[in-house]
């Protein structure tokens, strides 16, 4: 599902509410048809936000190991090794994140969000800072995750290689749904209108 909308339309807030980082001022948050903490606790969530949500003073490997251990991932060392390979950072695994480019940091951020194999993935403008090669890699990753049965909610600005992966587009305006469609020309218009 792709969220589009102008700056301040509520895309980031919606994703942070879905991640249970922000308490909603109204309405109900439901996961798999279950509202409240029971529903939320039963679903594993992964979030990629504007900020990278990783420590600059730790290496890529140390960051991922830290979060893998907190999330009680089985065999964290092997899992982290495989993820680093997947995001193309094996060679730089021991380098401190503060020495990374924005694109490389984003790769670490995506690897962190995938550590516990979340059923629901929340991506807030995930292509930010990625070069064209990085965007292609991200689109491939999202396609693979979508095809493996994960629910993906992402906020985007305008049409892109990544937005074409969406199966439903919602345009937000001042915190409300202004348009909602699944396929066809309207899908594209929602994304382009938001960018206008």
């Amino acid at each position: 599902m792709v969220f589009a909308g102008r700056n301040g339309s509520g895309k980031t807030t919606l994703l942070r509410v879905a991640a249970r980082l922000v308490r909603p001022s109204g309405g109900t948050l439901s996961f798999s048809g279950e509202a409240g903490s029971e529903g939320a606790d039963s679903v594993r969530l992964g979030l990629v936000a504007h900020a990278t949500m990783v420590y600059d003073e730790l290496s890529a490997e140390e960051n991922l190991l830290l979060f893998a251990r907190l999330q009680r991932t089985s065999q964290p060392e092997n899992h982290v090794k495989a993820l680093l390979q997947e995001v193309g950072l094996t060679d730089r695994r021991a380098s401190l994140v503060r020495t990374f480019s924005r694109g490389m940091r984003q790769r670490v951020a995506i690897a962190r969000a995938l550590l516990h194999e979340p059923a629901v993935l929340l991506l807030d403008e995930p292509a930010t800072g990625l070069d064209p090669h990085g965007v292609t890699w991200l689109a491939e990753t999202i396609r693979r995750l979508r095809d493996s049965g994960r629910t993906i909610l992402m906020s985007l600005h305008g049409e892109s290689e990544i937005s074409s992966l969406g199966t439903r587009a919602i345009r937000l305006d001042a915190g409300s749904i202004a348009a909602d469609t699944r396929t066809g020309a309207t899908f594209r218009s929602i994304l382009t209108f938001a960018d206008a």
Partner: protein
Amino acid sequence: MTLLSNTGVLLGKELRTEFRSRELLTTTFVFILIVIVLFSFTFDPTSDESRRFAPGLIWLAFLFASSLMLQPCFLREQHNDTLSALRLSVSDPFAIFLAKLTANTLFLLLTELLLLPFFATMYNVPVLGVLHWLLLVFFLASLGISIAGTALSAISAQARMRELLLPLLMLPLLTPILVASTEVTKALFDRAPFVQWKGVGFLAVFDLVFLTALWLFGEYLLEE
């Protein structure tokens, strides 16, 4: 069990990042050393005067230095929004507080122990005979400062005037610790040293009350 395991992992992260940069330890050590040296310049105390004034002086220096040390505690987590990543990763947010306050207590204790020889030499205070009791006071007071300071650091990190807010909130709240630890230390520096159990008990109760409050309400301090 998960709480302790998560606390251990997070404590490891706190220690690793600090010992890698040594920012907090170095700053705090130098700050307290400067205060001790400056005070020794302003008056030339006799042995009796030192026994009376030095305990208050050193605890004031520790308290001011702790407000410096605790400032980045949660500010660091805001830099890349790592606090959100931690909140998403731990089942019990108390683990975040427990790891931070344990790390802060260790950093404060380490600084206090490193500075004790300088303090004893400059102010001519005999500490060797009462070292084990001093360590108990250092531990209880540092734990209290860290518990309250870590909680207040979480509050102030979200405020606009965050650099000013922490000392403004922390110093009045920690006055009871300052008074109790000064009284206990003064009794230990006496010509006939004794343990002021009333003060020691007060420090222990303070730690227990604030730790319980943090356990019960800490989760709300981390909300956006």
